Structure formats: C-alpha cells, structure tokens
C-alpha cells in the first residue's frame, strides 16, 4: 500500500510538470510561434500611453526577451529555490515554492492563493456534503419506487437542476431570498469560520444550496440508475432469500455496490471545485480561487492563471489518489500492492 502511494505521488509530480509546461507553452511559446514579439506580450502590461521604448523596458523586466526555456527554467527554479523581484527602491523575496509573481499586482501568487483557499474549501466542502446526502438519498428512494410520483417529481427537478446554469439560479436566488425576502446574506458576504462559525454558515448557505442543486441533480440520476441496476442483481435476490431485513439489503448490499462509480465522479468533481468554483464564486462575488482566476484571466495576469492551474491540478491529482484508495474500502475486490 505504502509503495503504491509513493509511486502515485511520484507520478503526480511528473504530471504536474507536464501540466505546467503545457500551460507555460500556451501562454509564452504559442504567441511567439504565431509571430508575437516580446514587446507585443509586454504591451498588455503597460499604461495606455506607453511608447515603444517603455514597452521594451517592461518586456525586459518581465523576462519576455529571454528564450522560452530560460523563462520556464526560471519558473521551475522559483518553485524550488524562490526568487527575487524588484519593487523599485528595494527587492522583494518570493520564498520557495514560488508559484510566480503577478505582472499587475506586483505580488507573489502563492500567498494570494493560500489566502483565497479557505473560501473555496468552505464553499466546496459545504456544497459537497449537501449534494452527496441529498443526491444519493433521492436517487435511492427513486430507484426503490421507480415510476412513482416521487420518482417522477425528483427526476424532473433533477433534470432542471442539471440544465440550469449557476449564473441564472444564483442571481435569481439572490434576488428572491437575499434582496426581496432578506432571509439570506447578500452577494459578496463571507465570514471566516474561525471568526464566527454561525455567520460563516449563514453567509455561505445560498451558494452551497445553489451549487449543490446543480451537482445533486446529477448524483440523484446516477445513483438511481446504479441502484436500479444493482437491485436487479442475483446477489440481492440471494440476500433477500437469506431473510435479511430490506434495510440491510438496500444499504449494505445494494448501495455499497452502486456507490463505486459515484465515488469516482465525486473525487473528480471535488478536485475540480477546489481548483475554483468559477461560476459560483463569480456570481456571489466570493473571494475564492475561482473568482481570483477569472479576474486574472480578464486582466491577462498570466502568472496568476498559471498558479491557479497548478493548484487545481494538485487537487485533482490528490482527489483521484484518495478516491482510488477508497475503492479498496468500498469494493472488497480491489487490492493494491
């Protein structure tokens, strides 16, 4: 088991390198191949009246005039050894692992990301809890009474949930619950959990529910399909024939088996969300990683985007590792050695 984990972690590091190299190439190599000069790249980071000479100075300062592998090497070096950046009168040190230094805000990227991570974590964790519980429960009940009114109603709502985008349900629920009825927090509210756990939950309630609604719908449909499948299997008939209570049959035998694909999807979804719930955070103006990445993209602040991609990739890789390890628990047939 330990060897398996180490092997997976080594693979993860290599994968991260590939991802960063690919993103780096998209930002810095592809434009150059397409004919852009270092000054063209730099012209996005100067004021509106800059002349050619100023643009050149900025291009040199941002390192765009160096060959691409030197730039990538500098990025990697920053990751392991840290880097120094000039602020004018002094230099500022970006300690290892230095994820890069923003062109626009003149700040190291990693502290920004760590600063915003709790928001994204809070959002993802709360929403994940709601959608797993609600989605799986709905799916199970629907599967046990296929064709019933509950089943039809639940699957109808689920279809709506999958179809309605967050920037619609989010703004609508803000307009109704926060501004018209005044029972939930207005957009942009966030209180750190260590300041006040109740206010934390109150502020995040609406984003949680909106985000969970979207995912719960998919999970309900998946669970229902899986459960319908499983409940028709021979071993369920056997379990029932042994005289096990229906409750045990459904939960211990049926659900456990149907959960495996759900777990896989859950790992991926959660990993993706931790890399930033872009639409939810933008709609509710939550200062998380997703909002950060959107703002970075809008402003062409490439080091920030690179940092977000790194963090997102790390979470996806970790989430998958955890999911694979969980298989061993959920499904007795799976053994790692």
């Amino acid at each position, binding site marked *: 088991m330990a060897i398996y984990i180490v092997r997976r972690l080594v693979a993860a590091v290599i*994968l991260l390198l*590939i*991802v960063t190299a*690919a993103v780096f190439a*998209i930002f810095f190599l592809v434009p150059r191949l397409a004919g852009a000069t270092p000054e063209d790249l730099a*012209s996005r980071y*100067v*004021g*509106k*009246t*800059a*002349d*050619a000479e*100023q643009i050149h100075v*900025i291009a040199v*300062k941002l390192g765009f005039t160096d060959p691409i592998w030197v730039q990538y090497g500098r990025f990697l070096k920053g990751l392991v050894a840290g880097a120094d950046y*000039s*602020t*004018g*009168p*002094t230099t*500022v040190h970006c300690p290892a692992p230095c994820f890069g230094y923003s062109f*626009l*805000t*003149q700040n190291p990227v990693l502290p*920004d990301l760590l600063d915003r991570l709790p928001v994204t974590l809070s959002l993802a964790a709360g929403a994940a809890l709601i959608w797993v519980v609600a989605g799986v429960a709905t799916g199970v009940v629907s599967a046990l009474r296929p064709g019933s009114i509950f089943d039809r109603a639940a699957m109808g709502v689920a279809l709506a949930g999958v179809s309605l985008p967050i920037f619609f349900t989010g*703004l609508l629920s*803000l*307009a109704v619950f*926060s*501004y018209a009825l005044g029972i939930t927090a*207005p*957009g*942009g509210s966030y209180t750190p959990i260590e300041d006040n756990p109740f206010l934390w939950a109150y502020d995040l309630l609406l984003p949680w529910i909106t985000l969970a609604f979207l995912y719960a719908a998919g999970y309900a449909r998946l669970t229902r399909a899986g459960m319908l499948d499983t409940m028709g299997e021979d071993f369920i008939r056997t379990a029932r024939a042994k005289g096990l209570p229906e409750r045990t049959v459904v939960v211990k035998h049926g659900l456990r088996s149907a959960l495996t694909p759900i777990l896989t999807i859950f790992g*991926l979804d959660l990993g*993706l969300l931790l*890399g*930033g719930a*872009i639409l939810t955070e*933008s*709609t*509710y*103006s939550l200062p998380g990683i997703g*909002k950060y*990445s*959107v*703002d*970075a*993209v*809008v402003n*062409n602040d490439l080091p920030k*985007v690179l940092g*977000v*991609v790194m963090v*997102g*990739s790390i979470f*996806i*890789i970790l989430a*998958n590792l955890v999911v*694979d390890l969980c298989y061993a628990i959920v499904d007795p047939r799976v053994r790692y050695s």
Partner: protein
Amino acid sequence: MRSRRVAAAAVIAVSTLALAACGGGSSGGSSSSGGGSDVGGVHNVSDVTGGTIRYANSGDWDSLDPADTYYSYSWNFARLYSRALVMFKSAPGKDGATLVPDLAESLGKPSDDAKTWTYTLRQGVKFEDGTPVTSKDVKYAVERSLDKTTFPNGPTYFNDFLDLQGYTSPYADSDPNKLGLKAIDTPDDRTIVFHLKQPFSGFDYFAQMPSTAPVPVAKDTGSKYKEHVVSTGPYMFDTNDLGKSFTMKRNPNWDQATDPNRKPLPDRIEVALNVNSDDIDNRLQSGDLDVAIEGTGVGPAAQGKVLADQTLKANTDSAISARLWYTSINSDVAPLDNIHCRKAVEYAADKTGYQRAYGGATGGEIATNLLPPVIPGAEKFDTYPTPGNAGDAAKAKDELAQCGQPNGFTTGISYRAERPKEKATAEALQQSLAKVGINLEVKPYPLGDYAKLYAGKPDFAKANSLGLNVFGWAADWPDGYGFLAQMVDSRAIRASGGNTNFGVKDPEVDAMLDKALVTTDTTAREKIWVDIDKKVMDDAYILPGIWSKGLLYRPPNLTNVFITDGYQMFDYLALGTTRK
C-alpha cells in the same frame, strides 16, 4: 485513470483560458432626472457627518498608488486620500470641471513662454503621521511617477513635457536625497518650479493629476507603496486587502483650516473589489451598497428594471460623459481621398441608427461635432445637417456626383469584434449608406490589437481598404487638449501602428494645436479647440456618432449627490450618508 486526470486538469486550464474572451464592453444609460431636497443640482443636501459609505468595484484599481493610476473614477476617489497641487472643484455640473488650487495656494504661475510653472504650497499641510509636507515631497512624487518600469499604468505627461535631461527614476538617482531631477526646482520648502521642454498652456491640468500628491521618500516602497499610501487628505487607509477590499478612516492630521475644498462627511469608507456587476446593481437598489464606483452607470438588466419603475427612476441621474463614439473616415483609402466622397458619407449616415446601436436615446445623445458638451468651452454645431439626423440621400448623392462616383463605391468598415454595439453601428451604417450606393464590407478585428495591428496601423488599413473605422474616444480630463490631441494631431500618427488618430491629416489643424499649447488665456484657448473641431468637421475626416451617457443610480440614504463635469460621475468628495 491517468487519461481522466489529465483531461480534468486540462479542463481547468481550458476553462480559465476560455474566459479570457469575456471582459471589456461598456454599458449605456438613459436620460431622466431625480427628485428629493435638491438645491442647485445637488440631491439630498445635508451636512450631517458620520456613518459609512460603501463602494463596490466590478473590477479592481490599476493601482491605489497616485503615481500609477489612470482611471477617472480613481482620480475622483484619490482626492479623498491625497492632495495634488491642483484639483477639480467639488461642485455640480460645469463648476466641477474648473480647476482650483489644493495643495498649492493658487493655480500655477506661468512664465511668459508657458515653459516654467511655479506653485507655492499652503502652510500647515501634514502627512497622516504628522510630518509637515514640503515641496520636496511633491518633487519626489513626480520623480517616481516618471519610472514607468515600476509604475507602468500612470499617464506619461510629465515624461513627455518635463525637461528631463536623461533623468529616469529616483531609484536610479545618485543624489543622496533622491532629488536629482533638474526639471523641478524647490528653492524653499513651500515653492516648487516646473521647467518644461516645450510650452504648455494647460499645465494646471497636469498639476491636478494624482502624481503630484506628495510622497515621503522614507515611506516609499516602490510598487509596494500601493499597499499603504501615506495620506494627506481627510481619509487614510485603515485596512487594505489587495484585490478584495479596503477600508479608510478619518486622518487625524488632516486640518480643515488648510483645506477650503473638502467637507468630509462620513467617518468611514469601505470599498469592495471584484464584485459581480449585476450583483452591484441589485445591492444598490436593496440598500446593501451606496455607490458603484466606476461611475459608468447600471448594466442593461438593471436599466430595464429601473426605467420601468417610477420610484427607482426618480433615484437616477443621467451623466453625459466626455466620450465620443465615432467612425473615422480614412482619407488613405480611395475614393475617400476626395473630400466630396467623405462628405457623402457624412450626409448619408443615419445617426438615429448609430444611437439605436447604443441603446437608443438612453445610450447617448446624437453627436454632430467632436467636442462633448461637458468639455469647458465646447460648442454644439452641425456642419452636415440632415432631417431628424436620419441622413439626407439627396445631398449625399450630390456630393457623390461632385466626387466623380455618381453610382457610389465600395469600401470596408472595421469594428472591434468583442463589442456588440460597434457591430450594430457598422451594420446600421451599412444599411443607411447602401441607400446612396455606398457599399460597406463589414470587417471585425480583435479589440486588443485593433489600434496596434489593424485599424490603427496605416498600411494595414490602406491595404485592406478600411475606409471607415468604428471607434470611440474619451478625454483624460474635460479639456480640449485632453480630448483632441491624440485624436486629430496628424503628427501623432505612427507608421508602426498603435494610433488613436485613424486618419485626420490636416496641417492647419496641427498648427492650431500648437497655437493652443502656447495660449495661456483660458477663454482664447477654448476658442481654438472649437475652431479645431469645426475644421476637422469641414474636412469630413470624422463621422461623429453619439456622446455617451450613463444611468447612475443613487440610493436614498446618500446625501450631497451630484454629477460633476470634472469626472462625469458622482463627486466622491462630497458624498455623505444618513445610514448610521
């Protein structure tokens, strides 16, 4: 598993990249007027102090550092925490576009050739830590603003006009006090003298830029200074969470006796950054927010709601801005090299269609000349009058005949692909010009490189027959120079591209610009701007479209609310609140 993982990581990368296509754009507004206890254009007049004013920004500042900022809302807001030599008066309407001395005792005193400008500082002005402000702090502030490597965002007027003699930055200055710049003298602690390399009659407009607000050398941390700007105004920074929010409190070392221009009412100021713009509009109406700081007006969704509701509508103001949406007529492209063909375009264009593209009468006022009405001294005139501004086919055909193209001609019209309003403009012009036989081929180009590689690059525009180019232009400050210089000076056209003058080439116009630069008498200078406006219209180089408007919402709890022509939005210095 591996392929799924890579795919998922790729999804993140791609989805963040795909969002790069968003952003940009602008919102229109509509005309209406508000109610309340209004005096002389000011809503809710009150001198009640206390409370907190809550601002929100749908994006972020370029920088809070006075040396490194170039948004008009930012210059408006900067007056709360910094005192430049000169400032726009905190007053409604036209008065708001007049300059008054702030840190200085009076406006600049020019030498006869307008190349040397002298200011005397007020006595008793202090930084937030109690240190007295001297002319050396002002000199240092201007010096550091010259360093475009450290401060790339700010304007370059001082770089362009001061007699630098090779000076680049105080950070590369061998002078022990970092005051080596020869172009600025500080003979004593209260006097500062600027030496220009060429005459400039409107230097007071430079002196109102935030970059003349004093900066103490000892507290300067370069690009990090924006994290705590040392205040000289009535408010100082309390907390500053970059990219998210900041708050300000009263500055105990600001003294009302030294400052006739400000009456600070609220005790606290809170600013939220990077807030969803639709959410900003909602929160303004629900009372969870006081001011949308960018001052460009409510978005299209909220605009419909506000205009349909009489109560909400009563709380709106329509601000006409110093921005002209126009289409340049490129004389490089035949047959538009012939003035009569250009005039045919002026006559044939249906400007009501131009206005509809920007949301009808709500989006702006039909423009018949260049200078927006908020610019001091601007005059409205119409060189090419047509019935109802809807175009005059007969006159257009007459001009076409004189041009030797009686059956019309074909040329291209370019616009910025990411801007639906410009697309609608191009299509509206295509329709109205087709009526007289002028066929337009519509050609969209990417916004980011529009001026640099396409419409603003002379040989590209010529080679691709871009006879008409849809564009827009706004003044850095409401003044003829700020509006016209980059738009009509033919010497500003660079072959390498990046131009904002797309084809106005008239030596007489250039000569008039030069004359204005040495005319220190304001009235005489303003007359020259109008003459330039008339000459460019006579030449038919520009088809004016509309002067842009924004619909600003004003929550009932805000006091002393008015639109200043200085910034064409609410004056942030004057605002108070009744909410405690």
